[in-house]
């Protein structure tokens, strides 16, 4: 682990070459973290990987987090590791929820029978997604997918091939769109699933359990 002053040095060095990329640092319970602008995450990770003296070449984990109801709501965490010195460093890309401005229930996807069945399991999600709308610099990038506005983070699969499955998992569970991912599809949930189950406002046990005797209360469940 870089200690707290070491973390500040890293912050200063990154911001000298990429001004504004790293927003903040945090050092809590022996865990060092850099908080970065999501659109600049590739620059920061490339710098940490390639700069002599840093060489965080091993990415051990990519995972999402939902800080609901705090804002900015989402984060993608990249757990980096320097194998020579055994130092771990977390890079957190914090992302605002683009749906927050809309109706509060917008991020909670309504699961209705009309929505199921329309999705094409063959086509990659990326094909269905409309082109990434790059708004002015002040506004974070978003993408429209199946009528929802999702936050966008650039994919790092070409920098760290291990991120492939893990970014798909974050997309699957949190609905964070990774721009430039070669094959962004759901990975653990069924391909026609609707909703982002690991979001904090997604209810547990929302789906009815189907028995034969439920036919009366759930008409058409076999479709």
């Amino acid at each position: 682990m870089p200690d707290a002053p070491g973390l500040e040095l890293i912050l200063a060095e990154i911001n000298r070459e990429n001004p504004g990329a790293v927003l903040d640092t945090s050092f809590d319970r022996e865990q060092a973290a850099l908080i970065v602008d999501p659109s600049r995450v590739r620059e920061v990770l490339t710098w940490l990987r390639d700069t002599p003296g840093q060489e965080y070449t091993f990415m051990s984990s990519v995972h999402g987090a939902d800080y609901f109801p705090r804002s900015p709501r989402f984060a993608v965490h990249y757990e980096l590791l320097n194998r020579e010195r055994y130092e771990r460093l977390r890079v957190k890309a914090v992302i605002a929820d683009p749906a927050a401005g809309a109706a509060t229930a917008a991020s909670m996807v309504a699961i209705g029978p009309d929505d199921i069945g329309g999705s094409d399991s063959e086509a990659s999600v990326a094909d269905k997604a409309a082109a990434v709308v790059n708004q002015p610099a002040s506004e974070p990038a978003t993408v429209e997918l199946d009528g929802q506005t999702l936050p966008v983070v650039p994919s790092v699969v070409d920098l760290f091939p291990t991120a492939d499955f893990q970014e798909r998992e974050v997309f699957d569970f949190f609905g964070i769109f990774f721009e430039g991912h070669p094959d962004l599809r759901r990975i653990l949930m069924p391909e026609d699933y609707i909703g982002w189950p690991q979001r904090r406002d997604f209810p547990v046990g929302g789906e009815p359990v189907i028995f034969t005797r439920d036919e009366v209360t759930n008409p058409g469940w076999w479709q």
Partner: protein
Amino acid sequence: MARVEDTLHDREIRQAGELRDEGILVSDLTNELAERMPGVEFELEPEQEMLTVNMGPHHPATHGVLRLVVDLEGEVVKDLKPVIGYVHTGIEKSCETMTYWKAIPFVERMDYLSYFFNMQAYVGAVEKLIGLEVPPRAQWLRVLHMELNRIHSHLVWLGTTALDLGAMGVYFYCFRDRDRVLDTFEMSTGQRMHTRYFQIGGVAEDIPAGYEKKVRWVIEQLRIGIRQYESLLDNNEIFLIRTKDVGIVSRERLLELGVTGPLLRASGEPWDLRKEGGYLAYPELEFDVPVGTVGDGYDRYRVRLAEMKESLRIVEQILDGLPEGPWVADDRKYALPPRAELSTSMESLIHHFKLVTEGFRVEPGEVYNPIESPRGELGCFVMADGSSKPARVHFREPSFVNLQSLRDMTLGEYVADLIQTLAMLDPILGGIDR
């Protein structure tokens, strides 16, 4: 244009074998064929030559409900896509509805062969969050159970892998020894699998009388057992042909793909978090990190067998030098008070009641706690939001990450070797899907 479709296919397959022996990639095959058969003008129609085969999800050799979509050209694997999620149970989501210590039995059931490791990854993360010190005896007891668990996991792996390669007997011997290990778990924890033995702050119970004698007997039997497997497999002609020089991926590529554990060590990288990270009692214990040289299936087998011997060494050292003292931290805000105190101390009763009903609260924070599981780096990320329930529990499962390397291992190999490579990968679908 000459009509060559009838014969071309046979010639192509014959030549594909030769080209493969010369080290020419299957993807370059079309160009290469055109060069070798000048004068014959033909159009290869890839969609006719390629065969897409769906392996699984219920193929016994996939070690669980893993589905592989394999593109074959003749017998050669040209592309491979793992399809997973069939046993996804939403454990990470369910943990968010549990108090911190009620989530322990949940996380155990992810990777069902390394439950002590799952517990340690989670419990260790929570202990880091609350800054709780684990007493030495509890640390040693945890390491003791984790190393026995590593042997148990490797034994199941060895049995099923040998079964895939046609060695039925090894399977029975492995499960005989595995049950002996499970007997020791039953003796110390009351359960054979999914023991919920690790508590936040220590372990649930001290080991019973006679446990040491039992474990020493099991170690003796395991030493004999490992010698048996070695004599059955090490120089076995069929086993050698099937595993030698199969599924090799370079060390650099494995690191890029995030592969850890025996797979990485078999390719010659001595990377073991027990040495590097130095968590629990591992810095005080003496053991070696076995590495391979080539990184083929045979090296992976040898590395895992050597790891079992090292684990036996660790277990023996622990039995020799187990420190006396409490087996759970004395902080009543986090650890349950001893049962006997409940009838005499009002304070203990209150603590017990509060812990069981509400649990303890954790200051907001995030911790990533990596440990070395039988399959590689098992990391647990726990996020606390100030309440008595975790706001996010995420497991970096080694099986899940290692599975990405299967494509690199099998590309250009025969489909029969795919089974061997997959078995050597040791994927646990409960861990992959969570």
